[in-house]
């Protein structure tokens, strides 16, 4: 359903992506892993057209996205950093994005309940703590119920309870048959929600396969150790 062909991207002199080829079938849950600065966010933003690749193309259901915008109706995106206009209230933000998208949904109340955000609805976004902002970020990402979910470090800043809530939500979305792309540094979380691992190293895909394959390849039974092994072997 998502096909990425030979994507290259540089920012000035830094070459971030050096030829990424990828096929993501419908309904799969892919973890994008890699050290800081390896280009996970850049790859995700390329899918959304926020970053314009220097070379290569991206296809969604066999159509190139090439500077289009309608295709984004089918994608929900959680940005890595929850940056919001500071002078807006939470409820105003949700209403505004709904209006701008022209979407008639009331799913947000469900997620507001799940993350216990009621006390914050009339607070300005600028006054919220990082964790609360991240919850608002998550509500915005889930409320439109699109078939593709791109989550950039969804776990950052969350307390253990919210982390569990998030895990349940994601597993539920997976059951609905949605396609998931998730980056995270919490291996335990990745192991529970994803079935395919994509390891980016120095701008290319270093490993692409199932968790079972990864364990077999690295001869480690423990997922965390398997990833550590992968990192070490990449360095050598």
């Amino acid at each position, binding site marked *: 359903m998502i096909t990425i062909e030979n994507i290259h991207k540089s920012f000035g002199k830094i070459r971030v992506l050096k030829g990424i080829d990828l096929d993501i079938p419908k309904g799969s849950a892919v973890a994008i892993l890699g050290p800081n600065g390896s280009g996970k966010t850049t790859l995700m933003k390329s899918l959304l057209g926020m970053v314009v690749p220097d070379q290569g193309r991206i296809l969604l259901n066999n159509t190139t996205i090439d*500077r289009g*915008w309608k295709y984004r109706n089918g994608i929900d995106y959680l*940005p890595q950093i929850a940056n919001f206009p500071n002078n807006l209230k939470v409820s105003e933000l949700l209403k505004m994005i709904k209006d701008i998208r022209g979407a008639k949904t009331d799913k947000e109340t469900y997620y507001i309940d799940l993350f216990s955000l009621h006390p914050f609805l009339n607070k300005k976004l600028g006054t919220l703590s990082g964790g609360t902002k991240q919850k608002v970020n998550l509500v915005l990402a889930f409320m439109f119920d699109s078939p593709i979910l791109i989550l950039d470090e969804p776990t950052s800043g969350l307390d253990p309870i919210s982390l569990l809530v998030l895990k349940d939500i994601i597993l539920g979305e997976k059951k609905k048959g949605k396609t998931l792309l998730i980056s995270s540094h919490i291996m335990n979380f990745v192991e529970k929600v994803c079935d395919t691992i994509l390891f980016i190293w120095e701008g290319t895909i270093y490993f692409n396969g199932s968790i079972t394959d990864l364990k077999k390849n690295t001869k480690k039974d423990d997922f965390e150790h398997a990833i550590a092994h992968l990192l070490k072997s990449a360095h050598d």
Partner: protein
Amino acid sequence: MIKILKYSFFDLMRSRWSYVYFAFYLLLGFVLLFLNTDVSKAVITLMNVVIILVPLMGTLFGVMYYYNSKEFIELLLAQPIKRTSIFIGQYLGVATSLTFSLIVGLGIPFLVYGIFKSDAILDFSLLLVTGGFLTFIFTAISFYIGLSNENKIKGFGYAIVFWLFMAVIYDGLFLISLIVFEAYPLDTFSLFASLANPIDLSRILILLKLDISALMGYTGAIFQKFFGTQWGVVIAMGVLLLWVIVPVFLIRRKALKKDF
């Protein structure tokens, strides 16, 4: 795009700075009319203020709004909206809200003093139209400067230098070149020099309409000689419009290429 425009417009109309801007023009209008019982004279004084201050405000609001709404822009970029709609919508939001403050702020005192019963109504309207043009021009250019500079301080710096150049330095350079090249025929040069600066052009436009040769100055006189009053006004308006279209086109081009 209309939705983005609407949100930017109301966002700005709620902000403190819009009230200050609006209140300033309201006050200026009343004070000038109080001091000059002659409405036409008040229009001329007003012109001198508008021609310098409107570009400055457009410049400051343009960059400031761009940098302040970066979060909003990033949020919108992930939504199913055209990129150009986001940026052009935001730009139009700032420019229209500034123009709105200008027109209403100056309009109220002049209405109170009976502008509709005076012969100065056309001159006053022309002043407002010119002010609108200058707002749209300088907001577009400073918005573009913001878009082109990740660094806020640099962006503000370039924008203010641009305003300073157009509002102050340009005339100085022009005068110097007139003195230095005295021996040559300079009519065509002056004509182009005034077309290339929207502030000069606005001044000429208003003075042409007011038909006060004493204030018109060298370039104004040439303008009148060259085009006549009627055509002079039309051409000046056309070039001002071009001064809006070109920066908007640049914003569009930059917005399509930029990474976020």
